């Protein structure tokens, strides 16, 4: 599902800071936690896995695709087919209903809107009665569940979550991680969570762990 070897990413604007991951791999159905303090490049690594950013050195295979060989234009389509992304900022479209926020994933990916798929996901995430609500009418937890449903809409092989438990209390944290693992499993996706929150690790006992050092290493 995921193979990293000798990955180097140099930030464009920072003074030579770079992110390095020597070796990491994940089999299909396995989950992973990228652990490290804020500012260590967790988000950057997720962006690299999603082909939003491109590394300068190393090898990176995601779901059978060598990301080095992916042209920028092809990367967008590949991302839509392969990756489910749950950003730290949920970024629901305020002018659309909950259901439409899911269907927008089909539009972005150039598919026809599958209303049955949207309703099935909303049902599974306990949002069945919120399909016509606008994002601002939802609680924080409901908004996150909507974002999860949207990330899963295009049947991704890999679900990436960036700090999904930030600002959540213990109960909500356990609920969120539980939901992510169960939904990833139900949709046949591998789950990678980037977090500085040790509680996530406790909630995902079977997950592989990738620890990033405190700060991105200075380039030699």
């Amino acid at each position, binding site marked *: 599902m995921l193979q990293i070897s000798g990955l180097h990413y140099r930030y464009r604007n920072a003074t030579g800071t770079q992110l390095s991951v020597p070796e990491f791999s994940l089999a299909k159905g396995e989950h992973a936690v990228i652990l490290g303090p804020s500012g260590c490049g967790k988000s950057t690594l997720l*962006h690299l896995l999603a082909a*939003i950013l491109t590394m300068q050195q190393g090898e990176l295979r995601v779901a059978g695709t060598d990301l080095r060989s992916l042209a920028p234009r092809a990367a*967008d389509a590949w991302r839509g087919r392969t990756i489910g992304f749950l*950003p*730290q900022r949920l970024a629901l479209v305020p002018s659309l209903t909950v259901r*439409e926020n899911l269907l927008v994933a*089909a539009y972005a990916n150039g598919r026809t809107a599958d209303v049955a798929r949207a309703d099935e996901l909303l049902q599974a995430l306990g949002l069945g009665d919120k399909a016509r609500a606008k994002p601002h009418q939802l609680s924080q937890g409901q908004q996150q569940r909507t974002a999860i449903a949207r990330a899963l809409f*295009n049947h991704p092989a890999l679900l990436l979550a*960036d700090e999904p438990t930030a600002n959540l209390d213990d109960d909500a944290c356990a609920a969120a991680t539980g939901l992510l693992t169960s939904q990833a499993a139900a949709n046949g996706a591998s789950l990678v969570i980037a977090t500085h929150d040790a509680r996530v690790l406790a909630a995902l006992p079977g997950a592989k762990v990738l620890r990033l050092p405190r700060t991105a290493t200075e380039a030699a």
Partner: protein
Amino acid sequence: MKRINALTLALKSLRHKPLSTAANLVLMAVGVAMMSFVLAASQQLEEKALRDARGIDLVVGAKGSPLQLILSSIYHIDIPTGNIPLAAEAQLRQNRLVKKVIPLALGDSFHGYRIAGTTPDYIAHYGGELDRGEMFKAPMQAVLGAQAAAGAGLTTGSRFVGSHGIAGGGDGHSDAPFTVVGVLKPTGSVLDRLVLTPVESVWQVHEVAHGIDPDDKEEKAAMDEERELTALLVQYASPLAAAMLPRAVNSQPELQAAQPAFESAKLFRLLGVGVDVLRGIAAIMLLSAALSMFVALYSALEERKTDLAILRTLGAAPRKLMALLLVEGLLLASAGAALGWIAGHAALEILGRLASDGQNLALTGLYVASSEAWLIPVALAIGLAAALLPALRAYRTDIATTLSH
């Protein structure tokens, strides 16, 4: 909503900000309304003026202002410059440069509709056809234009008396009543607003008024010499006439020749200044609409950056985001333009109805000027121009930065 595409997304985004959307729609609509109003009204007036003057190469009348002569004897919106001797008609008819001469004897009106003493040639010249009744054959018979008949409430068999001048309400000629023998179909020309009668009727009305007995042979002979017309509408037989006839007519002490084409052009040059000013104001309105739309789209982009970035994580290419914003600009501009076009023409129709009673300009909102076609590309260009920069910014959005901050 089951369909999600650029159009529906743009529509929802616009509806999400009703105040900003409404303000932009109004700005755009006001600009387009002014523009379409000015274009449709000026072209309509010009076309009407041309239609009324078509086929009339020269107007011969009494000395005075040539523009007044044209206004009074072609458009019937001014008082005549005076009268000319009846002999002038025969003299012109003999000229081989002249193809057609139509006499006009003016002076009275009924309910504000001018009574024009003329020959059936005049009606034929404007392509008038009888809707009911028959053509006048004898003095004191009248054929009414469609608008005059409806406005004065007359039909075949009605009797009426004219009054002095064209304003209506002047002294009546109660002892010389007209009988309506026919009503014309609408022609869209000046004919619609006239009461037409043989030239002799006009003479007779005024002879009766002045106490002359037409049965008295001596008095009648004396009258014939003094009989007058108001104007002669002349059609040239050859292009040569344009060079020779006006000079020949003007050299005679009592006569003046005015060329409708020349005088109308002079009039429209004068009106054109006003039209240009209004067009300029409309253009400034459209420009400010474009600016306001640009500001709205550009500032909304700041809040929508994460929404747009998330579309990228869901597989949308940058050009899809660009299209989304362009569609939004185009939608806003064309909706505003459509509203404005309807408003402009509604205003024209209202003005036309208010003015049609008293004034002699019948404007309608149903008329579409050919120059209004320009409003479509102009509106689209405004929408594109307003959305272009925001769209380019959306295209260049750095998703990694946007999503992690």
